[in-house]
């Protein structure tokens, strides 16, 4: 009975405790999520004794001074960036076209198209990787840059479609009608009205595609042959010995990403304030 009264100190204490339990549990999860990043950063300043950088020895900035000091690592990094760039471009163009067709037009076999786009996202990566390898083996394709690029465009496509579709669906079709009423041709309407409004969705899809392609391991592992992307390099080094430079790259990537996101948020805030 006492718990019902909002003024009862007992109830107030319990409510406070309950709220704090949720907050504490949530922050605990956040800590669990961020702990490995902290470890990666701290160990980028380590000077390991053996080949593996798993236990703390002494502070050193050697790896930061010489990030490309490990054979083949920066080469694999630049290869990953190239593949991610082209995969993003390919998946974004193809995916945006599909998204527009899905939202704006009526056509036959819509259900089949929708499930063809949904299935790659609901399939374990290893299944896609293995089946694609059987295709390449049967066709006698040379495994390498091109097979990896083909595979990356394939699995990024669905994510771009989903991101762009969400944005185009929330678009007001009357804006385009208004443009046409003001004598804009179809091309002009598309370039000056449709595309700018859809741009955030396309950008989100492209960013997602880049992140997915750059960090992909399982599909690349199956279809790369002897080509070594950055994740493949890290995988190999887990067997042979982990250089500290891996942690340097990991830390730098984390910092750059957070910096970009925070800058983007601040710019967005300022713009919102200005338009007010």
């Amino acid at each position: 009975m006492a718990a019902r009264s909002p003024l009862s100190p007992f109830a107030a204490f319990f409510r406070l405790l309950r709220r704090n339990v949720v907050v504490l549990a949530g922050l605990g999860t956040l800590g669990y999520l961020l702990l490995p990043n902290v470890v990666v950063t701290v160990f980028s300043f380590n000077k390991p004794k053996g080949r593996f950088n798993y236990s703390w020895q002494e502070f050193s900035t050697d790896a930061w001074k010489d990030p490309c000091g490990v054979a083949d690592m920066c080469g694999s990094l630049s290869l990953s960036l190239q593949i991610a760039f082209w995969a993003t471009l390919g998946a974004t163009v193809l995916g945006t076209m599909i998204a527009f067709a899905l939202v704006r037009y009526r056509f036959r076999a819509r259900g089949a198209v929708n499930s063809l786009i949904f299935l790659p996202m609901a399939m374990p990566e290893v299944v896609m990787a293995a089946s694609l390898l059987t295709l390449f083996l049967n066709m006698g394709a040379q495994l390498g840059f091109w097979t990896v690029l083909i595979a990356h465009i394939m699995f990024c496509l669905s994510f771009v479609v989903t991101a762009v579709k969400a944005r185009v669906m929330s678009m007001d079709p009357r804006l385009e009608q208004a443009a046409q009423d003001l004598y804009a041709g179809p091309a002009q309407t598309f370039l000056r009205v449709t595309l700018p409004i859809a741009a955030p969705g396309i950008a989100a899809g492209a960013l997602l595609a880049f992140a997915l392609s750059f960090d992909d391991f399982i599909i690349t592992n199956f279809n790369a042959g002897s080509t070594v992307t950055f994740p493949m390099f890290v995988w190999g080094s887990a067997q042979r010995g982990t250089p500290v430079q891996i942690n340097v790259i990991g830390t730098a990537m984390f910092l750059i990403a957070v910096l970009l996101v925070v800058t983007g948020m601040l710019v967005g805030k300022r713009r919102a304030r200005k338009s007010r």
Partner: protein
Amino acid sequence: MTTRSEAAPPGTDEAPARPARRRGRLVPYWLLLPGILWLLVFFALPLVYQASTSVQTGSLEEGYKVTWHFATYWDALGDYWPQFLRSVLYAGAATVLCLLLGYPLAYLIAFRAGRWRNLILVLVIAPFFTSFLIRTLAWKTILADGGPVVGALNSLHILDVTSWLGATDGDRVLATPLAVVCGLTYNFLPFMILPLYTSLERVDGRLHEAAGDLYARPATTFRKVTLPLSMPGVVSGTLLTFIPAAGDYVNADLLGSTDTRMVGNVIQTQFLRILDYPTAAALSFILMAAILFMVTFYIRKSGTEDLL
């Protein structure tokens, strides 16, 4: 055709209008064609090739032929059922842990974070930008033998319980099922948090007040209002966690031992090292079928529960 219609004087409406309309009808197909073709050739066709490979016999030197050798499936299941079972168990455990760990954080972001909301969201997504392999390797340091985490778990006698359950091995956490599940949970946690947050964010905060006004205790409010309304997020979050976790072989390889191998590890070694393509294809096909079956069943079931 086009030149004639463009050259037609503006007075005659009929001639240019018709080709334009016909072209308009084809537009969606032209937009769909390249992307759909890509998915058909590099996603759907490979599944057919995989199915065909799984019933072939032969050897690498002499080549493989389709002989409808379905016994490969029975042999694969007979040889590797422990790995299949492990995949389901580990992925299931990781999914439950993700839900238990992820729900409070999603709830915190949706209802309690205030002006910190965007910052916390960024912190949830930010780890993605460091290669997940590097972050998974960091768990080797965190769970190292004799390290602070293992020491704390040991002094709290948690390791005694997990050892008794068979999840850990004496004083070790690394190279045990617990380490693999811990890595899987960590890797797929954001896939649970984000859908949960999206569905919690849509819950009208006034419903909480209304429940409180109707004398519901906080726990009751959660059970009868918040949780049912967040079910779409729970369903998509569990799917997004379970599916990739069941097929994963990275965590089992980096954090586990030969006793924690999952079906993904078997497919990987069969395909890339042993080069036994029919067995690998059969295993991959079974995994795909099992997951599609489970997902369909789960969606059906949760769909009806949602309405109750």
